[in-house]
């Protein structure tokens, strides 16, 4: 089995796909870093370098005043207290909340790339994993070895998981290293708020708590990895079913883009929440943005993605093991 996976990895590496993807990520990170840098400069110019401290001070006083006022709910009081702690931490540790370090940049990059960029990169690697063997005729050679068909497909699947992991890793490492050169490498312990839940029109702050940034980041990277894996599995299935890599890419691209569009307009079409492509923004649940359709939670979205992934896996193996190869 190790030999088989080694074979598959060798083919992926020799096709230079992973290298191209790392290069794309590096270029994009550089681009975004520069944009972010310009933005920070702009903000600082407007506020003056030291103004953020007085501003933060002002915010803390505001929060305290609100805490002292009577007639606020218990939940809201708790939220404000946590908020206060966060602001105090920024002030105590001399952190400008609007001037990010590399980990903050990483976090933003992951949050913004989870829906489209990461799936696209995954697609580029996975789309031709099986279909290229079929269209190139090498499938016939693979399947006439003394190795069972399911083992061959499993080795390819494992290679896919490894490649997806590599993509996520290079995304994390490259965005850290490149943005750090501009923003500094600190900020791992920055406290962030999480645990917001949206119920209907109301923001439920009952479970809000603080999380150091490294933990927060780890969770988000994990979620992004999960999304990448599911998208990878779906692409994998299409790659098994179809001989044409272009068709695989076309279908996946259409699905992903339609997901991005649907997210913005399906709030009234409730059953759309069972589509995998509107469930890709898992990190939104951590940062507390309202989901596209009411009633969606982190658990729900992950379950939907897991079911899609599992179904795709079953279809892939079934088709691959029973199909006649012409």
């Amino acid at each position, binding site marked *: 089995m190790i030999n*088989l996976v080694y*074979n598959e990895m060798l083919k992926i590496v*020799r096709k230079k796909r992973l290298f191209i993807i790392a290069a794309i990520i590096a270029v994009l990170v550089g681009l975004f870093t520069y944009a972010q840098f310009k933005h920070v400069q702009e903000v600082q110019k407007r506020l003056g370098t030291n103004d953020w401290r007085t501003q933060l001070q002002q915010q803390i006083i505001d929060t305290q005043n609100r805490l002292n006022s009577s007639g606020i709910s218990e939940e809201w009081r708790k939220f404000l207290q946590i908020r206060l702690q966060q602001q105090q931490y920024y002030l105590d540790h001399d952190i400008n909340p609007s001037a990010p370090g590399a980990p903050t940049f990483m976090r933003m990059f992951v949050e913004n790339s989870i829906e489209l960029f990461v799936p696209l990169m995954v697609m580029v690697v996975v789309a031709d994993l099986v279909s290229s063997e079929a269209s190139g*005729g090498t499938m*016939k050679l693979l399947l006439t070895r*003394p190795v069972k068909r399911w083992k061959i497909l499993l080795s390819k699947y494992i290679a896919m998981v490894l490649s997806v992991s590599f993509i996520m890793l290079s995304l994390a490492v490259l965005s850290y290293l490149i943005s750090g050169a501009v923003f500094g490498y600190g900020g791992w312990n920055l406290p962030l708020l999480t645990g917001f839940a949206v119920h209907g029109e109301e923001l439920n702050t009952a479970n809000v708590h603080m999380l150091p940034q490294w933990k927060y980041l780890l969770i988000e990277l994990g979620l992004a990895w999960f999304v990448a894996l599911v998208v990878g599995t779906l692409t994998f299935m299409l790659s098994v079913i179809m001989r044409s890599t272009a068709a695989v890419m076309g279908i996946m691209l259409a699905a992903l883009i339609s997901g991005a569009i649907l997210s913005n307009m399906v709030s009234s079409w409730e059953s759309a929440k069972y589509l995998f492509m509107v469930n890709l923004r898992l990190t939104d649940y951590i940062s507390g943005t309202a989901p596209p359709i009411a009633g969606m939670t982190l658990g729900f979205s992950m379950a939907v993605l897991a079911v899609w992934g599992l179904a795709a896996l079953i279809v892939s193996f079934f088709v691959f093991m029973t199909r006649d*190869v012409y």
Partner: protein
Amino acid sequence: MTDTLVVQNLRKRIGKKEIIKGLSFTLREGEVFGFLGPNGAGKTTTIRMLVGLIKPTAGRISICGYDLHRQFSQAIRHIGCIVENPELYPYLSGWENLEHFARMLPDLPKERLHEVVTLVGLQNRIHDRVRTYSLGMRQRLGIAQALLGHPKVLILDEPTNGLDPVGIREMREFIRFLAEKEKLSVLVSSHLLSEIQLMCDRVAIMSKGEIIRIDDVEQLLKEQARVYWKATPIERAKVILAEQTAVLGEKDGMIVTFYEANQLAAWNEKLVQAGIHVSEIQPKLPTLEDLFIELTGGETID
């Protein structure tokens, strides 16, 4: 001689159409077996079933005693094959391609790779990318790949397709060498009659999904061999020959009879004794082309 590949009543149905209608044949050790038929006769489909790419609807395939369906891994170990074109990974070198397939075989010593490379004579270019290979070199690399695991049966689908005349001759000699010296059973498919005639011991003639004849190539040819006689006066000669054998007709002023090697001299003597002037005795072996047309009732080839 032992049987290496046994096929019994092999059938394949696609939708409502039966495209392979009950094939049975065996391959013996050390022989080259030809699969002859026009395009669309079902040669490639049959070969794909033999190597496990297509599941037969019915029938049994056993390779060195292992059932291909139930003991796939053990059975397929004894088969080396090239199905249609020798397609390998163009972005890897020839050597890396061989390593790739060697890794899929259990416990293959590294020396075997050198062995097969030397066997097909690719030493000089083996570390170049396959993308840069000519078709002939790809064909050789394909054979090297097929021979990696010491197969007992080698299956080659149209092995000389696209090769130049020199390449075709080399391939032919190589296939004969493998059968005679390495004791492999080689199954070769072709739609070219001359090719089968030159390199096969036995031939199965296929048409529309059925085998219409299996026999030794020599036997087949002999059966259809004829003798042309040029003699004067022709009418008397015909009468005398008809006493000895069947006269099949007249062609270009010559009498046509069956060919019986040990009888020719005696027949000739009879003619001479009767005062007939015999100027030519011409034995003629038919081409497989004639044969094929006769057996299939005029179905064209190609």
